[in-house]
Every structure is written in C-alpha cells, then in structure tokens.
C-alpha cells in the first residue's frame, strides 16, 4: 500500500481558542482554565523531553509551580540543546524605539510572513507574550546588547520595518538558553526536576488513550527504561536533519515526534521547511553539516554569478560586464534583500543553469568589494569582522579580498506535531512546544521568531494549559507492568535488535546522505509533481535496502553512536515519505513550499487560497496516512499575494 493512496478524514475544528475579540482570547482562555491546587501539584509528575529554549523554559517553570518534573535530553548537558546555536536575535513587540511597533504589528507581520498558513489566534498570543519574554530573560541575567545609556539595544531583521529584534552579539540563542538552563539547574539542584541527560526518548506510552509516559534509552549504558507521568511534553526541536546536511546540530532528530506520531499524534504540514539563503557551501563529500552566515551580510554584500555557464575563472578576473547581479536584476525594488525563500530559490535557479561557482558549482558570490570601496575596510570589519573570521576559518579564503561563496541550506522546519490552542496534540496529555510543533509560523518563519516562540511556549503558554489538563482530568495510576507498557518496551527493544542483527555492508551515514540528497533534489527548494513521485517511489526502496544492508557494530548495551544514528534513520525514512506526500498533495506554492507548477507568469510563488487555506494534519495508520484539514480563518489579516519585484 503506497502513501499515494492517502485518504481524507474528518476536518479538525476545535482549537480551544475562545471565540471573541482576538486580543482577549488568551486572557479568556487562562481565566477559563482549571487550576491545580498548589499543594496538589507535587503529586503530579510531568515528563518534559528536551531542554532547548522551549523545554528548558517549560521544565523550570513547571517545577517552580510545584510539579514534579522528569526531564530528558540526549546531550551530555541540558545546556547544549540545539537552541544554543541561534545567532541573530529574538523579536518582541516592546516598541522601545517608538517606531510604530505594537503587538498588533508583530501579529500582522508574522501571519503575513507565514504566507497565510498559520492560525491567527496562536500568532496573536505569541505577539502578546513576546513582551514578557524580554522581561523574564533580562531578570535572569541574559546579557542582551545594551546602549551607552544602559538600555536595551534592538535591530531590525528579516524584512520588517520596525526595530524589534533583541540580540546578544551573534550568540542570542546561547545566552537565552543559558538563562533557561540556569533556571532549570536551580530546580534540578532543589530536587524539583529529575534530569536525565544522555537519555533518548524512543517511544511514547499511551494508556487508555492518554499519554502516560515514555520509553527511553540511557545512551551510556544502553539500558531501556520506562518513565510514567500524568502528562508528557515534547520539546524536541525540528527535523531539518532529515536532509542530512542542514544548519541544525548534528544530533537533532525527529525520533521523539515521529514515534509520538506513530502513537496517534497528527503531524502537520511536514513539507513546510525553511531554507536559509546565506550558508557556507559544502566543500566536498565529507561535509557533515552546513554553517549559517548571518542574514545581515546581505545588507552590504552584492550577490552575483558569472553571466556565462561554466565560467571557471577566479572571480577577480571576471570583468564587471560579465557578471550577473541577478537579484538586483530580477527584483530591482528589494535587490539583495528579498526574503529568504526568494533569495534561496533564485540562487538555485542560477546554479541549475550551470552558472554556480566553487566546487561542484553549488554556490554564488557574496561580494563586499563595493562595500569596502564605499565604507572602507575598517567599517566593514567593525560591522562583520566576526562573520568574516568564521568564514575564513572554515574556507581558508579571505572574504576581504575574494568574494564569499554562499549557498542555501535547510535551516528550520515549520511543520511538526499538530497542536491545538493549548499546545496539546491529538493524543490527550501529550503536548508539543517549540520547533517540535507546527503552531505559529505557517508556511514560512520570519527571522528571530523561533526563539520567541520557543520561550513563549515554555515560559508562558504551556504552564497554564497544562494546569488545565491536569486540573480537569481524572488520572488513575498506571501499573508498572501494564500490558501496554510491556508492548511499547518490546517494540523498542525489537527494533534495536533488528538493526544490530542485519550486519550488512553500509554505514548509517551512507544511507542518511543518500536519503538527504534525494530529499534535497526532489523536496527541497523547488518541488514538482514528477520529482515528488520519484521520491515517493525511491524512499521505500531505500528503506528496504537499509534493512538488508545496514551495518552497526557493537551491542545495544553500551555507548553506541552508530546505533543511535541508525535508529534515528529509521524514523527519517518514514518522515521523508510523509514530507513528500504532503508536498505532493499541496499543489500550490506558499512560503517555503514552492511548487514549480504553481507560479505566476514571472516565476513567483502562487498561493491557492481557494483550495489550500488549511493546515494539513496527517494521521498515522501504518499504511497510507489519513489527511485531516484544519481550515484557517483570517479575520484580521487578509490574505494578499506577496510581491517584491
């Protein structure tokens, strides 16, 4: 049975967002929510998987409220979650600049930036809460950039016209995460959080239709353990690594959300992936991940490729009239500053034409020669010095004299577990927060709003909604030997044993690379029906080959990193298939999802609101999945076609 035979099921309607004026919905929801008596909270155990911005914030906050939290991460320390790598900044509608910003404007920008595929109620709440996040982080000692007067500095980011992005040099994610991690550490030391680092969730335990625990593997000893709780929160981040090469940390993976999906949680919009235009191109087959260069470089750098195909002269020898500054040519109004998705696609087009530069022709120049001539080397150095240094360290080329080479790379996944307004998945008692859910960014995420969403979910949104769940649900204790638990444990153990038993002749990485390349080609920056069908045919073959040829030395009862990789790969195969199906069924272009068939006359993305103004929530069946549509209603921001020419 092929994925192509998917069925359309009941639409999903209830999002738990109260009716009424959008500004009051969150207040209303909190007011209506049931509370748990503080004295009773410590009797409730909550599992939080993940210690990134979302999970770290949630774990600390829930423990402060008195819950007994059991938390997990696969890194050796909660402080190393992938969120630490975020560079640019975090948005908040503080309007400190008095430049016309407001909650309403942040809401508006985010809905529009998401190309009208996000839920208005959620986005509005995000904008409201953004203000509190900055207060919270400052109180924790997060060293945001400040001006001489001692007040917080902001900058503008990603095509919005107000300056609302708070930052800490190029290490905003690190500093925010350390804030959350420290708050969490305090609760760990106080005994309110039981922290399991180097422990990977491998499955979800659902008893009587409710999420009641997880099965996890101790990555050091290999021991499988079951942890029971009254609710489970997944804050496990995005799945960009399904492409093998991405800007995500090497070990970020989809296992937690995918296994939850297999246990009944709907997966929404899996094909909505974001590609970042300015990454350092790969230098060879050995490449293990891609490094992001801040988007701010496009403010002063000019992007070009040679006019002629296969021009291999060094850039300095290509005369001005043989260069094609293609963004400036195609989008005279926005030039090099067009949004991420547009800049990425344009780079792909010129490289596909054979005009790409660098090894493999997968790169375009980002040239600072004009900027240096105009502002002087010193000014360029002051503005971008650290980025230039990072570039030089990686490529051994001096960007002051030779233009940088950049290429788009997978960066963020807007898709994720479907959640309602309460951030609860379709499995009662299972919540998903941060990049792991699909909630707030629609088909495209604006710069500096993932950090905002992760912290909003963790610090402010989840705690009251979780309270409501625990306060309004009767939860009987689950016996440790409940048959369901044994079944899940057996599933997990069997799968690991199966992988170890194959003893074939291919490494996990070799499969992952192949899958990643396939996805990048057919379900990357531009997608079309034929390609997606090819991918949908190829993925099952590849998966079958995996089960014949995978080789993992060692045993499951020890630290075995090859086993970890292979085990994650099994989920990637299934997820990849769903991504391709989702991309195939959504025969429109929107945000990060560009279907070549659905373009305007001048090659721009053409949305189809008639047919596709919905979030696609997929139900796992074991065979062909079932599509549940959540129709989106836009009462406040009216859908328009984006134009940047």
């Amino acid at each position, binding site marked *: 049975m092929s994925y192509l035979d998917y069925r359309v099921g009941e639409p999903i309607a209830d999002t738990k967002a109260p009716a009424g004026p959008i500004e009051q919905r969150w207040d209303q929801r909190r007011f209506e929510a049931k509370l748990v008596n503080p004295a009773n909270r410590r009797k409730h155990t909550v599992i939080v998987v993940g210690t990134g911005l979302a999970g770290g914030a949630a774990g600390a906050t829930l423990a402060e409220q008195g819950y007994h939290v059991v938390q997990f991460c696969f890194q050796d320390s909660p402080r190393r979650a992938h969120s630490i790598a975020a560079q640019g900044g975090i948005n908040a509608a503080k309007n400190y600049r008095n430049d016309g910003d407001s909650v309403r404007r942040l809401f508006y920008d985010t809905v529009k930036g998401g190309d009208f595929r996000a839920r208005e109620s959620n986005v509005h709440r995000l904008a409201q809460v953004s203000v509190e996040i900055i207060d919270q982080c400052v109180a924790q000692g997060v060293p945001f950039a400040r001006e001489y007067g001692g007040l917080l500095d902001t900058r503008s980011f990603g095509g919005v016209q107000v300056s609302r992005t708070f930052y800490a040099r190029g290490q905003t994610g690190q500093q925010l995460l350390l804030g959350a991690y420290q708050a969490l550490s305090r609760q760990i030391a106080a005994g309110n959080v039981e922290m399991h680092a180097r422990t990977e969730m491998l499955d979800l335990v659902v008893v009587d239709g409710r999420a009641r625990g997880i099965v996890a593997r101790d990555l050091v000893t290999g021991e499988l353990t079951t942890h029971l709780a009254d609710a489970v929160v997944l804050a496990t981040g995005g799945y960009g690594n399904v492409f093998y090469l991405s800007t995500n940390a090497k070990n970020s993976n989809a296992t937690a959300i995918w296994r939850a999906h297999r246990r009944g949680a709907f997966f929404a919009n899996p094909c909505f992936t974001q590609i970042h235009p300015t990454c350092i191109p790969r230098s060879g087959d*050995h490449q293990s991940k891609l490094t992001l260069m801040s988007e701010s470089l496009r403010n002063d750098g000019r992007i070009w490729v040679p006019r002629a195909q296969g021009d291999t002269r060094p850039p300095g020898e290509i005369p001005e009239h043989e260069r094609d500054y293609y963004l400036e040519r195609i989008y005279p109004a926005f030039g090099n500053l067009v949004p991420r998705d547009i800049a990425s696609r344009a780079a792909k087009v010129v490289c596909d034409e054979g005009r790409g530069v660098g090894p493999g022709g997968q790169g375009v120049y980002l040239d600072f020669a004009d900027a240096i001539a105009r502002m002087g080397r010193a000014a360029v150095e002051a503005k971008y010095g650290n980025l230039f240094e990072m570039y030089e360290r990686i490529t051994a080329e001096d960007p002051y004299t030779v233009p940088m080479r950049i290429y788009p790379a997978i960066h963020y996944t807007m898709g994720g577990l479907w959640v309602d307004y309460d951030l609860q998945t379709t499995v009662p008692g299972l919540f998903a927060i941060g990049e792991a859910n699909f909630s707030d960014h629609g088909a495209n995420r604006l710069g500096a709003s993932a950090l905002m969403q992760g912290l909003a979910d963790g610090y402010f949104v989840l705690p009251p909604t979780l309270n409501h769940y625990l306060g309004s649900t009767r939860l009987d204790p689950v016996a440790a030997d409940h048959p369901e638990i044994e079944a899940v444990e057996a599933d997990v153990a069997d799968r690991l044993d199966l992988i170890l038993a194959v003893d074939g002749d291919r490494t996990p990485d070799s499969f992952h690379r192949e899958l990643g390349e396939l996805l990048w080609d057919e379900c990357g920056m531009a997608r079309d029906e034929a390609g997606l069908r090819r991918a949908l045919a190829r993925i099952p073959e590849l998966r079958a080959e995996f089960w014949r040829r995978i080789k993992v*030395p060692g045993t499951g009862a020890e630290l075995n990193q090859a086993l970890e990789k292979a085990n994650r790969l099994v989920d990637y195969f299934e997820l990849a298939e769903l991504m391709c199906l989702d991309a195939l069924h959504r025969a429109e272009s929107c945000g990060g999802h560009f279907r070549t068939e659905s373009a305007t006359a001048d090659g721009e993305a053409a949305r189809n609101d008639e047919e596709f103004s919905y979030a696609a929530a997929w139900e796992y069946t074991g065979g062909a999945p079932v599509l549940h549509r959540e129709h989106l209603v836009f009462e406040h921001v009216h859908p328009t076609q984006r134009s940047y020419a």
Partner: protein
Amino acid sequence: MNLTLRIWRQSGPDAPGAMTEYHVSGISPDMSFLEMLDTLNEELILRGDQPVAFDHDCREGICGACGMVINGQAHGPERTTTCQLHMRHFADGDTIDVEPWRAGAFPVVRDLVVDRSAFDRIIGSGGYITAPTGSAPEAHATPVPKDAADLAFEHAECIGCGACVAACPNGSAMLFTAAKVVHLNVLPQGAPERAGRARAMVEAMDAEGFGGCTNTGECATACPKGIPLTGISVLNREYLRGLR
C-alpha cells in the same frame, strides 16, 4: 593527506584504555577534525570495528560538546573548538595523538567521551539568578551600564566545553566557575545573590574534586572563547567578599 592517528580507546569507565594506531588517507585539508574522525569511523564500521566515540553536536563552536586533547593541546593547535579545527593546520604524513580530557572530575565514559556533569552541578549550586517565571519587572526598570553589560557578556560566552580543566595542570575548574560568577555578579540583577553565589559555586567545585588554581594560566590559553584569566581574580574577590 595521509595521516597516522594514535587515539585513546577505552571501552567503558572501568575498562583499561590504550593509545591505538590508525591510518587514514585521502583527508582533505578542508575537513574539520571531526569530519576526519567521521571518515575514520566509516572505515571502522565497515571493518566491523567499533567507531571512535566522541561528543559533538553543533559543529559550529558554540554548544561546547566537542573536545579532545590533540597532540597534548586541548582542542588542538588553534584557539578554537575541535569542531572548528580544520585539517589544513596539519601536514601530510603527520602523526596525531588524540586523547580525552583528563581530570579526576571528568571520568572517561568511552574513548574520547568524558562525563562533564560536574559542571552542571556547579551551575546548580548557585550559577543562576533567582527569577521565577512571571515575577520579572519591566526589562527597562534596571538599566545596566554598558561596561558592566560588556564585562558580563565577555564571561557569559563560556560554552562549558571543559578545555580549561583539560589544560590546567591541576585539573582545576576555576576558569569555568569564574566565567559564570563574573557574568552574574557584575549585573545588577545578580547583586542580591552575589555573595552566596560565589561561595556556593566554589564549594561545589571543590566537592566535585577539581584541583585548586595555582594561577598557571594554561586554562585561558586553551579557552576557545577567550575567557580572560583575570576573571579568576574576580571570582577570588567575590568569594572572599562573600565570606565576610
């Protein structure tokens, strides 16, 4: 490039370990040190040998997961993290020694993986500002002078990699602890807990079995984030103040 690697292999915390020799060929100078190890590991897996275990995640020099002692130097010859060290800093035909961080407080888990959870416990003992969610005043209520903000930031950059401990002849965690204490103690938000923080963190550090500081300065030389050695002096001051 062709290289000879001598890598510390140890199958578990209590197992004996030894330097084991490997040869890798076709190494590109553009590879990072970890990608070079990836290449070796691919070969080992196909041979049915256990790949070399090492910690890594971001591979961008920010998560602090990676770290090994390369030819006697923590993170190798460049002042950066192991993941950002590139093979062009080595020459064809080199023999490279690769060892785990060595410190009593960082027991070896396997091969090049060590247990750095002692750092987490140091943070848990006081490396935070108590600000329960929801209790925060408006962010602009407390301006922070720019020099204090900059000093805090300079120390907040610590990625918790542990290279300072690995490099210190005494296996001391002073630079790490200093980084955190200075970051929080120079900010007005951190002032109320200032004294207790330094005391608690030094106590926790001692309890974990790290050595004392003899002001050798190796730590600051090895630190990929350039945490200044003078931070240790500030930690000392904060500690002594806190005792009063």
